[in-house]
């Protein structure tokens, strides 16, 4: 999926785009919860549907789908776009 933009956080991902998660910038209990749901650093996250009217967006991660509000998605930072093929789980 070639794109020239450089999404910095999950919030910047458009529907259908995917990227590698780098770190979660949230309090420990929240980030632990997110990690349990599959948002581990190094994992591949894809943006999916967004709730009508600018509500939360659904993200695909580790075989499941999780909805996050924009303000939360903005705290999940992405790795700078890696070249194709090297993006495997760390």
């Amino acid at each position, binding site marked *: 999926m070639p794109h020239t933009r450089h999404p910095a956080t999950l919030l910047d991902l458009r529907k259908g785009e995917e990227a590698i998660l780098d770190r979660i910038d*949230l309090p420990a*209990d*929240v980030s*632990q*919860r*997110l*990690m*349990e*749901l*599959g948002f*581990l*650093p*190094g994992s591949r996250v894809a943006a*999916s*549907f*967004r*709730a*009508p*009217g*600018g*509500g*939360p967006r*659904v993200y*695909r991660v*580790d*075989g*499941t*789908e*999780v*909805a*996050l*509000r924009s*303000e*939360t998605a903005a705290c999940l930072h992405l790795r700078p776009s890696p070249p194709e093929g090297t993006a495997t*789980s760390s």
Partner: protein
Amino acid sequence: MTRPVVLPALEVPPPSAGPSRARVVAVVGPPNSGKSTLFNRLTGLRQKVANFPGVTVEQHLGKLKIEDAVELDIIDLPGVYSLTPRSEDEQVTHDVLMGRMPGVPKPDTILLILDVTNLGRHLVLAAPILALGLPTLVVLNMADELERRGGDVEAETLAQRLGAPVALISAATGEGYDTVLQFLRGRIGVPRPMELLPTLSDLPRCREWAAKLGEAANYQAPAPPIWTRRLDGVFLHPVAGPLVFLVVVVAVFQTIFTAATPLMDLVDRAVGASGAWLGAVLPAGALRQLLVEGVWAGVGSVVVFLPQILLLFLFIGILEDSGYLARAALIADRTMAKVGLQGKSFIPLLSAYACAVPAILATRTIENKRDRIATILIAPFMTCSARLPVYTLIIAAFLPEKPLVGPFLGTRAAALLGLYLLGFLAAVGTARVLKSSVLQSERTPFVLEMPPYRRPTLRGLGLRLLDRAKVFLQRAGTVILGMSIALWVLAHVPLKDGAAPQIAESFAGTIGRVVEPVIAPLGFNWKIGIGLVSSLAAREVIVGTLGTIYGIEGDETGKSLQEALRHDLTPAGAVALLVFFAFAMQCMSTIAVVRRETGGWTWPIVQFTYMGVLAWVGAFVAFRVVTAFLA
């Protein structure tokens, strides 16, 4: 509430390898793994909901007979992703498994249920569970879905690696279920583990361990659920999504009115016929009168609403089990955010449509204390099922059924929908006021897993309805029966010249007359007053009370409850009564649970007063406006 975690950290020796028979079995698994489906299959009708002392997460306990004289206790634990006790759910699971839950026997066997279509992530939970050292069967659920979506796994290999037996089953269809029973009978041995368990606190390493195991067992992840994506394309579509949401809600309300009517007529006739039979069989006297006028008329007029309430729960069950509710929460989140509440408040508020008590208990999952109190305070505004009999009685008595939008929406369903909306608006408005004043707090993240859409099972829905019917009839048999008898007696004393007085002259009538000056501005007379006083115990009691009052009065005319009501209420008064019930906090159970959950009388008193004042003012305005409008 964080207690030190005392889980063994690493390299636990394998549990004793010899097969042994289970006694107390805990069913553990992540949310949406099909835990309840398996539990329902294991215990069927032999289950009960229990509240553990000190905690209020609802628990399901059940029994399973596996051999002639052998019965197992089965405990269904809350869905968790880990055993680190952070939320109330995890604390309960942790405490039960460690044998630290008072009144609950320590489990000696575990059924760890995992969604095999999501094995890598779910297998992470196997690490802390196996570390407990109890005989554990790893149940890989949704085998049928895995196969349909082209996935695969070698259960044998996984069992060898894990050092625990593995069963590949489908709890919904029953495929492979026999293995679970074999295990519980102690017929399956425990292999020795080939993999050391990872350090439990290190989540990334746990996930890596799970991935390695999956690879070893040749796990082929299934293709993405195509139907879920297609359906989400509609249900979360910017235009179609909210439209479908609306259609679903309208259809539910319309069906509650139309489809329930024949069933309710049936129950009504059964109640009437049995009452008449009783009247004919029993000798004339006080006992016959008490039974026919008091008990039959009182309890009977409430029991009639059972079909309607079950229908409502059937719809809630279908929406919840199919996975649509999670999408509805997503659509509603923006509204919730606007009034300052988090998405987590949505689920308790939704369950408040059934009853405020479990809703208030469900707020325990909200970590933020201010958000939690705000949610507790607004929950009783949501239209609970106890309001349904009151609403439908008054609506049916005063509003003729006419089609509004073709056959899709009639006047009565629209009125009911309006009342649900009124309660919702009151809740949202109150939340807004609270969250922008005394209960301000930072917004907390909304994280919600979207389960794939699934077909609800008949068994699951059936058990749910049975449970609800039990609760409803229990209330009819206790609170409403008691109130009906008490009211019948109060309506027959003090004796005048050895005979019962006119109701107006009785003690019950006196109570009605005492409150009459307060409620007269709302268009209510003293009979409605008696109903309002008695409904402080529980809302639907007013239906029983009016049934009893008119049952006693009805000797001369034999009017139906609806006709009698039209006699005592003007249309404006009827609207006022509906508004009053939409706002007032007439429920002792709710008051008691709010006191317990907020740790004092302050909040319940504030809440009762606030809702009472709102109810009076709302009813007053409604009465005036409708009177002026109809004049």
